[in-house]
Structures are given as structure tokens and as C-alpha cells.
């Protein structure tokens, strides 16, 4: 350890370890001797593998966080949630529509939200989870998609929901519905796909492939930049 860095005491599932204060929870567990299997994926706040619950000694509040994105604190009592069961509805995107009726078939529990806001309070991404559930109930999939977009599917919301909602899967379905049916398809893209399928670029690519390195270098160095 470098000079000048203090230490804190943390309790991994009740067991005490003294660790450098600059570490994240994940690094601290490793420092303490754990070789992670579950509970560790991207190590950068993108995958949601590392949901953690903790309390600080002397404080009544139950806190949550991503182990890779939360710094350790003195007196932290923590446990990771390595897995939390969540239901995923099976569907064929080509056969459903962005309608409340279709959604209710897939995720009826979404419409039984009690409005307790536990999901929103617990979200480590600070997403207003309850609000996007409300948008889904109203059939406003564009807003639900937009608001839920940063979800990492860590499952903390699901662990706290008294109505048994699997928010992250409902959100993902809303985003897929929005993107498939409500956002317009890209016309340029469709045109380019047609051109490629009709072989419009085949000759040009063949020629490029057969060009010498010198010729390619010349083309590259003189290419126009938008």
C-alpha cells in the first residue's frame, strides 16, 4: 500500500477485513482474498453483475450499490446478490404490437404496481423506475423506452418489488417494441441494403481488394474527409 492512504474496516457477510479506503467494494473483496466468480462482470458499471446491499454500522438505512462503482466506507456491512430470479416473457417481436393489450399478455403484473416507489429508490442508475412502469401502463412506450434506457438489469428493483414485477425485462420489451414499431425505419439504410444485395458495389470492392499496398496508401492519404 502506498503511503498516505488510510484504511477502513468492512464486513463481508459479517466477517471483518481492513482494506485501503480508495478501493471499490469489488476491489476490497478481492483485496480481502475473494476470487470472484459470480458478482463480477464488466468491473465498470455496465453489466449489472455486482448488485450489493449494505448497511453502515450505526445507521438504520439499508443501502444498495454496484460493487464496482461504490467506494468502501468505514463500518460497511455488505453482501452481494449473486443471482435473483426474474421471469422473462417469451415473445415473437414480429407478432406483437406496441399496445397495452399485448403488453398485458406478456407482463400482467406490471399493471398491479402498488406505487410504493421502492424500485426507484433502489436503482443504482438513478432511473425513475416507477415512472417508466407508469408509462408502460399508459401504453406510452416511447417514454418508457427513453426513461429506462440506462438500465443495467442488475435486478435490485426486482428484489424489492412487492408486486412481483420484473422491471428490467418489462423495460427491455418496451424498448424493443418502441424501436421496432414506433421509431421510423432508416430509409437510407434500407436503400443501401438494396444496393448491396443487387451487387452495386461488387466491382469497386473487387478492384480495391486487388490494389497494391502503394495504390491503397495513395488512395488513403488523398481521401476526402467529411
Amino acid at each position, binding site marked *: 500500500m502506498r503511503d498516505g492512504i488510510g484504511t477502513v474496516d468492512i464486513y463481508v457477510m459479517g466477517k471483518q477485513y481492513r482494506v485501503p479506503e480508495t478501493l*471499490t467494494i469489488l476491489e476490497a473483496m478481492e483485496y480481502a482474498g475473494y476470487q470472484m466468480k459470480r458478482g463480477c*462482470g464488466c468491473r465498470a458499471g*455496465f453489466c449489472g453483475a455486482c448488485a450489493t446491499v449494505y448497511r453502515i454500522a450505526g445507521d438504520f438505512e439499508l443501502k444498495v450499490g454496484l460493487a464496482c462503482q461504490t467506494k468502501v466506507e468505514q463500518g460497511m456491512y455488505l453482501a452481494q446478490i449473486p443471482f435473483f430470479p426474474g421471469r422473462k416473457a417469451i415473445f415473437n417481436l414480429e407478432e406483437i404490437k406496441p399496445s397495452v393489450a399485448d403488453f398485458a399478455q406478456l407482463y400482467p403484473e406490471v399493471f398491479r404496481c402498488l406505487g410504493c416507489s421502492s424500485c426507484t429508490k433502489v436503482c443504482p442508475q438513478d432511473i425513475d423506475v416507477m415512472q417508466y412502469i407508469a408509462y408502460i401502463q399508459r401504453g406510452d412506450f416511447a417514454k418508457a423506452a427513453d426513461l429506462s434506457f*440506462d438500465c443495467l438489469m442488475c435486478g435490485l428493483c426486482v428484489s424489492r418489488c412487492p408486486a412481483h414485477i420484473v422491471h428490467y425485462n418489462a423495460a427491455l420489451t418496451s424498448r424493443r417494441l418502441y424501436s421496432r414499431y414506433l421509431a*421510423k425505419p432508416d430509409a437510407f439504410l434500407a436503400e443501401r441494403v438494396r444496393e448491396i444485395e443487387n451487387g452495386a458495389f461488387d466491382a469497386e470492392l473487387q478492384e480495391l481488394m486487388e490494389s497494391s499496398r502503394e495504390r491503397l496508401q495513395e488512395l488513403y492519404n488523398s481521401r476526402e474527409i467529411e
Partner: protein
Amino acid sequence: MAYTPQLRELMKKVEETRPSRVGNPFPRMTPEERQEVLKKFHPDYNEEGFREIRVGVDKGKRMPTEMADVIEAYSRLKGVALDLNTFDYDVDVLIIGGGGAGASAALEAQAAGAEVLLVTKLRFGDANTMMAQGGIQAADKPNDSPGIHYLDVVGGGRFENIPELARALVMDAPLVIAWLEKLGTMFDKKEDGTMITIHGGGTSRKRMHAARDYTGAEIMRTLRDEAYNRGIKVIEFCPAVELLLDKQGRAAGAVLYNLETEQYYIARAKTVIIATGGSGRLHYRGFPTSNHYGATADGLVMGYRAGAKTIYADSIQYHPTGGAYPPQLLGLLVTEKTRGLGATPLNVKGEQFVYHLETRDVESSAIIRECKERKLGVPLPTGIDAVWLDSPLIEQIHGEGTIERQLPAMLRQFARFGVDIRKEPMLIYPTLHYQNGGLLINENGQSTIENLYVAGETAGGIHGTNRLMGNSLLDILVFGRRAGRHAAAKSKEMAAPEGLNLDHLEQYHRELDQAGIGAERVSPMLLPRYTHR
């Protein structure tokens, strides 16, 4: 308030020079200048970090030392008794790795009528794919074309790309975007449906498609959702540890290892697709890495042992903008989109020293030069030097609110550790990011071993010796899909493989022994070890 008073003092220089830098672009390097900075400062050109491989099909080729260590190693199965002809799983196509390459291969193989099994080391989607922020390239705008894209790819790749692979990459690109669009991937679009596209390092057209700065996550979760919808069988926490070959020496399955129960399983398959991703967790030259926890070169090791050839395995990409401070962000990627939107690197005097969108190899080398040779880095309390990345400039160029809209993941990540990147510049240094080379493939994703396919970051040749941003998310889908389709078609033409064996390991072990390599070295690594004691 994560920055110390000393850093705040240095930050003032950045603020002072900012007005004079707006609208005053820094010149790009000439081709000669690029060559020079690469030769002198890119880690790939520093012979100290490499050695010649002493065993296997590519004996005599150069590899980074840390890669050579896992290649020149004994199998985990040495001395383990297994019944290789009782199958726990018996399928048409076995896919090893649950990132974007594996998921797209699985979808296409199954769509082509094959029975598919996907096994992965961590959870399905715990992968580098999930972490890609910046975007994915495709030439789909009227002022762009696959030919122009091709030139960017090979120019960026130092003209060392395999032409057929580069062609497949650019020609399939719009098809891949259209496939994703139809699967309900939420790309950034204008009202009329046109995808919003911007520049990336080394692009000559604005062809970077994004889903905010969660592009890889959005693609990954969509593909995973679709795989579940289609009933594809997935086993998590169950890495492959060795390939199985049949009587004729063709790939015929794999030995799997349940990380939790520590049991081995035998999976027989007519064709096998390796999609295990990269190797950042080998920490070449001691660099921190942007890669996910499972990026330990397992596929490279297994494939090489079975006799598959490599290409450009000694070419590693260092991303110019890795987090340097606060310490919790060390090595983490600052997406290239940050520079795409106009943020520029600055030295300790607040001066720009390199054009902000050079190719990654050049940009990284210039940053290393600024710190190591010119000694103009920003000294950090953690004992390393770094450079500024002037993120507040983005809001000056594009208006307030741009960072929140376009870089929400970055904003959140730095805010978690006390830095507001809308107001305070970031501190960055190159981070180990990507494996440019890998196992050699052809345009169907076939390796040099029959019935063995490779897709994604484990494969090599597509990008020459330097990949451009946005071409990796693209390649994993292009070659994942191609490999999936071809492996499925191939599996239909053949009977179930017979005489499954691990004879190649014995041969390999003999070579190791002859080279005097000690038996304590075992691979694939599977999980890195970061324990303190």
C-alpha cells in the same frame, strides 16, 4: 471534489487556454510523423514486451510475454481422467462464449436449423460487448459507400488486413445494422428515422451509429433477449477448458467446466465456434485494462493447442483515453465518442499536443510521448502522469446539455467518484483495450482446423494491426453471423463425429516438456486473480 487542490490549480491552465482553442483546430500529423511517433512510443514496437513462441503451429512467431505465458502452458486437464465418449451434451453447433459474437452466431445457426448450445464463463452478456460505448460503423449514408469504408479500415489497419475479411466487414455492415434495427435495437435516430452518425478516430465519413453511450449494452441485451425468445440453450458459469477433436483431427466438441460445482462435462458437437473475446486481463506490459473480467485469452489458448494458426497475435491496441484519476477509474474506458464530440487532449500547460482524432495507435503514442519524453504530463497523487481531456469543451461547441444527452454513462461514472465532466476536464492515459489479431479465419469464420470456427475479438486478420473504433462491434456481428450460418450448414452435411479425443494435448505437452517449460504453468486462465494475499 475528487481533484486535490494541486490538481485544481493545474486545471486553471486548461480553463485559461480554452477560449483560444475553440474554433482553432490542431493540425493532423503527416504520414511520416505518424510513423515516427509509433516507432518510438507504441508498446507494440518495444521488443522488451515480446518473445518468440517455442511450441505449437506458430513456433517462432512473436507474442506479448504475458500471452506467451498462457500459450506456453499445460492443460488444466493434465492428469484428469475423463470419459470422452459419454456425452453430457450432444448438439450440432457448440458456441463457446456469450458476448456479441457468440449471441449472433447462436441466433443465425439456430435460424439455419441447427441445434445449438451456447456455453459461457460468466453470465450471458458479461462480456466486452456489454461495455462498448461509442458506436458501430456502417456505410449507409448517401455520401458514403462500402468502398470508402474499406479504405478507412485498411488505412487504419496499416494495410495489413486480409482483403477478403475487410470486404466482408464493410459489405455486411449495413446488413447488420438493418438486422439490429428489425430486432428492435434502440439506435439514436432523428425524427424521420435517419440514424444519427458521427465521426470516430480514423473515419473519413460520419458513419458511427450509436445508442447513446451504451451502444454495446443495447446490442447485447437485445441479442440476448432474442436468444431467450427463440429458446436457445445457454449454460452460464460453465467455460470451455479444452477442445475435443475427432478421429480425423477435426473439432468435435469441448470439455466444459462448471465453475461452481467444479465438475467437467463433455459436449459433443459437429461444429464448434470459439467466441471467447479478448485478453485485456492478461495486463500486457503491466497496463491497466478496459476489458471485462473474463477477457483472459481462453479461446486463443484452446484453439492454438488444437493446432489453429494465429495472425497478428503480437498486435495489441492501447486505447488513448483510459481513466487515470480518481484511482477507482484507473484503466476504465473513456469512450472515443468524447473526442468525437470535440474533447481534446491537453498537457500540463493546458496546450493541445496532438489532433484529437488520430487513429488510436497514433493518439496513444502521442500521449505516451507527451508524458515520457517531453515530461509535460499532469503529475497525479497516485504517482503516475496523465494528460487532460477537455470535456467541458464539448458543451462550448455543441451547447449545454450535450454531455448529459450524449454521454450519460461517462457523466454518471465520473460523478460517482466526484468529478463533474461538464465543468471539469478528465484525466486520462492509454489503457490496454483490444486484441487486434487472434486466430486466423477466412470470410466464413473458419479457422485452419476443420469444423472449428472463430468469431469476434478472438479472431484475427480483419483489422490488420490496428482496429478503428466502431469496427469491432461490427466485426463480431458480421463474423458471428457468418460463422453461425456456415457452421450450421456444415453440421447438416455430416454425421456425428466419432472417436473423440484429447490426443493433441499429449503432443503439446511433449513439446512443452522438450522446451523445458515447467508444469506449474497452466491455462486457460479462466479467472484473473486480484487477491492481495
